[in-house]
């Protein structure tokens, strides 16, 4: 069971955390919503819960709750630019189908 960040993603997360001035890491999760059933969430972490799983990648602490981990195992988080837009992208091997915009998915 593991979740990884690309170097680009890790650099960004570190920069955002430094700018924010607080926070211990990055939380990845899924919630059941959206047009294809599941949606990704990406949040700063101020406190962890006892059941949380944590990983370390390129110096960034990644935190996932066990329910989400079932859907996210093997995911690589990347940071990319597309035209003028830029942001984080989930490369998730568990996904079978995505909605047109890619904001939600099914496994």
């Amino acid at each position, binding site marked *: 069971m593991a979740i990884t960040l690309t170097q680009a993603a890790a650099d960004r997360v570190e920069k*955002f955390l430094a*700018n924010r001035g607080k926070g211990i890491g990055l*939380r990845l999760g899924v*919630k059941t919503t959206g047009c294809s059933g599941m949606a990704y969430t*990406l*949040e700063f972490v101020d406190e962890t819960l006892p059941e949380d799983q944590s990983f370390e990648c390129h110096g960034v602490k990644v935190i996932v709750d066990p329910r989400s981990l079932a859907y996210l195992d093997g995911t690589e988080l990347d940071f990319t630019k597309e*035209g003028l837009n830029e942001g*984080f992208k989930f490369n998730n091997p568990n996904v079978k189908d995505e909605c047109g915009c890619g*904001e939600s998915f099914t496994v």
Partner: protein
Amino acid sequence: MALLQIAEPGMSAAPHQHKLAVGIDLGTTNSLVATVRSGMSNVLLDEYGHALLPSVVRYLPDGKVEVGHKAQAQQSLDPQNTIVSAKRLMGRGISDIMDIAHLPYRFVDAPGMAQITTRAGVKSPVEISAEILKVLKIRAERALGGELTGAVITVPAYFDDAQRQATKDAARLAGLTVLRLLNEPTAAAVAYGLDNAAEGVYVIYDLGGGTFDVSILRLSKGVFEVLATNGDSALGGDDFDRRIFCWVLEQAKAPPLNAEDTRFLLTRAREAKEWLTDHMEAQITYVLTSDEARGEVINLTLSSGQFNALTQPLVSKTLSAVRRALRDANLTVEEIKGVVMVGGATRMPHVHLAVAEFFGQDPLTNLDPDKVVALGAAIQANILAGNRGQDDLLLLDVIPLSLGLETMGGLVEKIIPRNSTLPVARAQDFTTFKDGQTAMSIHVLQGERDLVSACRSLARFELRGIPPMAAGAARIRVTFQIDADGLLSVSAREQASGVESHIVVKPSYGLSEDAIINMLQTSYASAEEDKKARMLREAAVDAERLIEAIANALSKDGETLLDVQERLAIEQEMKQLKTTIQGNDARAIQTATEALNKATEAFAARRMDVTIHQALTGKNLKTLEI
């Protein structure tokens, strides 16, 4: 696939529910758009990597509209159809525009706002500004990958209602939802996080391309209050270029220049100025093209010392404006907690040094002075769009004048005092003045004075259907509520029956900054006079209430309980009091009221006896004890 941003803990939005909000600095010379992504405020770039969009709009012969760098490049070739600095015209009539003779446009005087005839027809400054906002909106939507929820647009602190309304109209025309208009100096302070800093007074020194503004802000409990503003609408970085340009002409003893040479030499002058920010001297080289001097070469070296000496008068001018602002705010340099530098021209080392020396402290400069206003606006937009927790909600606005309503005697009862932070809601209970009164007129007023006639009337409405009761028995709760945009709604509700009535008003509409200041000053100056007037009105109201009650009693029981002599005595006192009310002596009215009260004591006692007698008649002791 969609690209995600990091949200605050617990604030992840559902898919397709992202609230994309931007901050827009709609400047006189340049405009910018910024947004907060993953908790960080960033200026959005166009496809060429430019952050600044020159606030220049050109109407082309083929009906298209060009905005920004392209339009700017054609400015001198097509001056009548290329509009620069439309911001100076926002909400202004022709008579308000000072240097109209120097502008190359064909003006049309329209009611309220000057308009310009272009080859695309008559355009108002609102439409021209909307073109700039449209370009920024498209840039933002492409960068954020979705439609915008809304925008915070910045305006100078001294903008009056007409200018603010014009800015809002321009945004609506561009298809933008305005979350809020934010004062530029406040936005700069927010960008530096001063809203989370220690309370105190801050100075925002904003030297832009063509304008200079200084604002003094007081931060208390997370609220910025503008204490004073000053500046010079015709002083900016361009004037520094012009000083270099004139110096070059003087040194080179150049013959009169043609338009092209003038334009290129001005560009050289600007480049030299920018070079001197990091270097000790700048080279200015140019080959003239005019008929009289074709091929003549200008080759000069300008040292930073020379440049400083040339432009020192301009720097001194800004500092005089700062001094005036401090004097208006009644503050000394020692009371200033921090100084924020805004505008590209503040990069010049001698400007920085002069400001640092004046205030005896180093100004804040670590954010890009061109971008700082947009960055602050983006932070505010992000909060207003709901992308952060409720605790972070900034309260940045205060109401400039108290709000209240008219009570008996033409007096104003203040419900929301001035400088209350928005949003705010206050309620107060009122009652009826006459027996059986079934309606109440509610007159909403703005101002600091005690008399209705000296305040500004905002709205009037009526509460009808109050059940008939004795005077003073009804309980009518009047609630004043102002939302974050300054929209006031007033409601009145009779508590027993639940009848309700309400009205919505824009409180500050049509009041300029000057008018507000004027109203405040008269209120201070006339406090004593107001107090006397209030006493007089209150005495008169009390007297009228007594006369009313006695007249009622006389018509009911006057025949049965009083002999002719007694009745005459009471009527005599009533007449006396009625005459006194017409006068201006509060004391005399009070004395006459007491006299009437005394004259009717016996009558009142007899009426009481009769009432008790009636109440007791036909009842035995047993029922009375229960």
